[in-house]
């Protein structure tokens, strides 16, 4: 854990500082009103005149007490505050997307495996391949045209309606939910395809196992074989896969939030990258990686909890 965290900070820092060019607050060479002394002063104010390892050390020391520094942007606010106000939207969308993936992909995968080579299975395989290949933002655009602009069923951008403040509490929840439907679906589409495919092949693997053959020979009904005996074992690897899908979801939030104009961490990252706001970019990268790390940890722990072979094996 700790060396991993250390490595993460090193990559985040290195990536930022080895690239040529400087943040836009400093890059004013072409501005006649800014003298070279001013630029020097700005550079020393932000600590950019010091050698890289010194800058890294300073950043790391502050990071250890959860101080991510100040943003380079005009408001100069603390990086952590800026991230904190944007992160709930991103987390909500990704958590909902993950729940959607679990709720849809697992039944689809199981049904495909049980009815292998049926029309349902073939149709789902086609859906999976298309889901893998479709550029998510393109699908998002098509949905925006179809459901948003032409049919006017769903709002196409933002989190709230203009009349948000006049609404009652339940109306507000309903409004927010409507705004989240398309973003959540678009975030989920890739994972949906991948997970149902994975579930299908996992289920097929388990069905071929010896204990299933034994159960069948003993006359257990097909229903019980599939849903009581096979399903549990086939579900185990899904836990790991969910953990592995976190970086993809977080990375994808840049595109989804940009597409639907949602004020989340992805959008903040995009803005900070364009304005070369070093502390903010590094802060978000580190937090993204730490979220992934935590996700994997939770996945590992729940795997150990869910798998009796590991759960009981450790006690002896």
């Amino acid at each position, binding site marked *: 854990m700790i*060396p*991993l965290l250390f*490595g*993460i900070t090193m*990559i985040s820092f290195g*990536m*930022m500082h080895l*690239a*040529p*060019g400087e943040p836009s607050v400093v890059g004013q060479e072409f501005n006649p009103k800014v003298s070279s002394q001013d630029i020097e002063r700005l550079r020393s104010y932000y600590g950019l005149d010091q050698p890289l390892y010194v800058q890294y050390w300073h950043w790391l020391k502050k990071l250890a007490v959860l101080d991510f520094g100040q943003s380079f942007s005009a408001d100069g606010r603390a990086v952590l505050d800026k991230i904190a106000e944007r992160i709930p939207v991103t987390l909500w969308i990704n958590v909902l997307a993950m729940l959607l993936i679990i709720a849809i992909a697992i039944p689809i995968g199981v049904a495909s495996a049980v009815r292998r080579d049926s029309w349902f299975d073939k149709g789902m395989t086609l859906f999976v*391949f*298309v889901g*893998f*290949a*479709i*550029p*998510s*933002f*393109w699908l998002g*655009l*098509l949905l*925006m*045209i179809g459901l948003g*602009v032409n049919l006017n069923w769903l709002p196409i951008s933002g989190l709230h309606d203009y009349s948000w403040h006049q609404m009652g509490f339940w109306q507000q929840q309903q409004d927010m939910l409507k705004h989240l439907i398309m973003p959540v679906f678009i975030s989920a589409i890739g994972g949906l395809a991948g997970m149902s495919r994975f579930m299908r092949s996992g289920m097929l693997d388990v069905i071929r196992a010896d204990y299933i053959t034994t159960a069948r020979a003993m006359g257990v009904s097909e229903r019980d074989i599939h849903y009581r005996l096979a399903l549990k074992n086939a579900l185990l690897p899904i836990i790991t896969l969910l953990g592995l899908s976190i*970086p*993809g979801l*977080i*990375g*994808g939030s*840049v*595109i989804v939030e*940009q*597409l639907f104009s949602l004020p989340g961490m992805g959008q903040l*990252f*995009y803005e900070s*990258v*364009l304005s*070369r706001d070093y502390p903010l*970019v590094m802060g*978000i*990268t580190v937090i*993204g*990686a730490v979220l*992934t*790390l935590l996700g*994997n940890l939770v996945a590992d722990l729940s795997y150990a909890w869910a798998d009796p072979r590991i759960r009981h094996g450790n006690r002896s």
Partner: protein
Amino acid sequence: MIGILRQHPLILVGGSIVASVALLALLAPWIAPYDPTDIDVSVILMPPSWQHWCGTDTLGRDVFSRMLFGARVSLAVGFVAVGISMLVGLVLGAVAGYFGGRIDALLMRATDMVLCFPTFFLILAVIAFLEPSIWNIMIVIGLTSWMGVARLVRAEFLSLSGREFVLAAQSLGVAPVRMMWRYLLPNAMGPILVSAILGVAGAVLVESGLSFLGLGVQPPNPSWGNILTDGKDNIQIAWWLSVYPGMAILTTVLGYNLLGEGLRDYFDPKLRS
């Protein structure tokens, strides 16, 4: 050959799509009815017609011609990026798998570390800082997608390194580099090829995502992604600008994925049934 194709229809379907797209890209200068960068203000944003099969864009350029030339750019990004990621992944994975022990532990920890990052964040940040030229895009996509290959090659080499023919060659004093190149690599070629083909599909998708954010291949060079970006800005008045390039990306990526899946089945007899 025909027998293989009959047994693995995915290879046939995917292979045909891949081959036709590659052919269209190669022959673009001869097929394209117009110059892809030719601006003609008299036909701005024309819907598809007999003169312009896929309509025209905001500068009156022929979308069909731009898509043909865009295919070259998108595929070039895909292939070079995969070439880079294969090279890095092969070297790291081979060294880790062959030597094992401490080197292996060190390299795999490093791989795990890079896997923790939302890759798209890394790509975005580096591209934005380096200027989004086509070469930078290829390099950055390549350098952020080698982890899967490294793990794969390592696992293959580890499982091969205990086999008799490897021990025999080692006892004859074959040098490590020759050992890996001549004896181990050919035996691991199947899965590597599959992951390279799937990698091309992934890289094409990433480039289109970057273009969507305005950080992909820059105009006037056409790429499917940046035609689509144009489409996004004119979505309410010119559907053809978003629909056609999107279909092109979808079809191409689908083709590579199908080919990859087909080859995976072919190389892995365990999955055959």
